């Protein structure tokens, strides 16, 4: 059942991400729903479900990316692992810590993706100042909503995998 709920949640997030990016992106900038959802699922779900979810979100972004195929999948997988690693040591139950987590992961995935570009394309993939400055804040703002969704879907970690 958890698997089905995750699949539904994934499809919802992909559609919302596509809709927001295609129909509502003032100045070409809009929060990354897939990243916020990955952060929420990484905290709420078990290790296997969380990694699979993060990986699939990354694959969708790679599908939309013109250059590196696999860069986002790698960045989101590593990000999910780090969140899973730290969730036992930190409290992510309140919105403030959830926002900080989404903020940090946005920067981290950007760095990993850029570094992957340096390794595989000999070029750090830079997505502009507007994106770099605005995106972590935008993702931080929407992150608590996805934590609430994950709670509603009862994606609790115990025994999910």
């Amino acid at each position, binding site marked *: 059942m958890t698997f089905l709920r995750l699949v539904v949640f994934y499809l919802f997030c992909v559609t919302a991400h596509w809709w927001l990016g295609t129909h509502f*992106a003032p100045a070409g900038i809009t*929060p990354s729903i897939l990243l916020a959802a990955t952060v929420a699922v990484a905290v709420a779900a078990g290790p296997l479900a969380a*990694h699979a979810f993060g990986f699939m979100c990354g694959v969708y972004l790679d*599908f*939309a990316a013109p250059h590196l195929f696999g*860069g986002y999948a790698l960045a989101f997988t590593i990000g999910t692992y780090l969140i899973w690693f730290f969730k*036992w040591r930190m409290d992510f139950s309140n919105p403030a810590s959830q926002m900080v987590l989404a903020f940090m992961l946005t920067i981290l995935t950007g760095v990993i993706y850029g570094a992957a570009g340096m390794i595989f394309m000999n070029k750090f993939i*830079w997505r502009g100042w507007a994106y770099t400055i605005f995106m972590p804040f935008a993702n931080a703002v929407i992150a608590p909503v996805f934590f609430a969704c994950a709670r509603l879907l009862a994606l609790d970690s115990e025994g999910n995998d």
Partner: protein
Amino acid sequence: MNKEKRLANMALLFFATLSLLFLILPTGPLVRSIKAIVSFSTYPFINTAQSLTEISAGVPRNVLDLLNTESENRILREQARDAALMRAQLDAALEENRRLSEIAGFKQDSQWKGVWARVVERDPTHWNSSFMIDRGFSSGIELHDGVVAIQNGKVGLVGKVIEVSRETARVLLITDEMFSVTCYLKDHGWDALAEGQGRELLRLNYLPTEAQTDGGEVFTSKSSVVFPPGISIGTVLSVHSHGNFMTFVSADLLPTVRPGAVKEVFVMKKSQQEAQ
């Protein structure tokens, strides 16, 4: 806890290896097949959502007059678009004609042939890099077909097709860092190379050191192997000198069409241009 930790390590190892495999594999048939499968699986989903968006944004169905007005408006807009495209073609043909009458021996170019397509998918993480359109090889679109759009009544270059599936295609935008096109300055005839920078402005390189071309319009060059000549690329904003030791100067170029704002594009079919 130990079991979960082991599971997490294994999941990291598995998915990271898979991601690295995607990265390492050449962008050949396998990666293209994976992308085609993802495209094939998500396109119906995206298409349905697009239709629902349009229905929810439309006028009530019982107001027939309004519906007729709306459909008439749509037809007129299409006609206006075609008229603007024809005008750009005429301008390009006139400009081409002027140059050809000066330089003998060049074959006169044909008109642009192609199809209109809608932008159906953009990603905020690659806003200045690419978007997906709702036409694919079933509509005759091929790799490296040129893409133009109309904005403020002017036709301008948007990019080129870099991936094609049956019903969709991905367009690499002129603003992407990997995009470049040979071009010429209309007023001076200088050839140069317009390159994307990952932001809204393009960079115009290899201009002669004496170039002072602020405000000059830049068009695709005859020497471009991908695009037909005479398509407007942008307007020169400012020229930058790199010091005395450089043999060329560069300039900032404002695109004629902002790729981040277009909703519909015209894909120029290369095969049909070549056939003529």
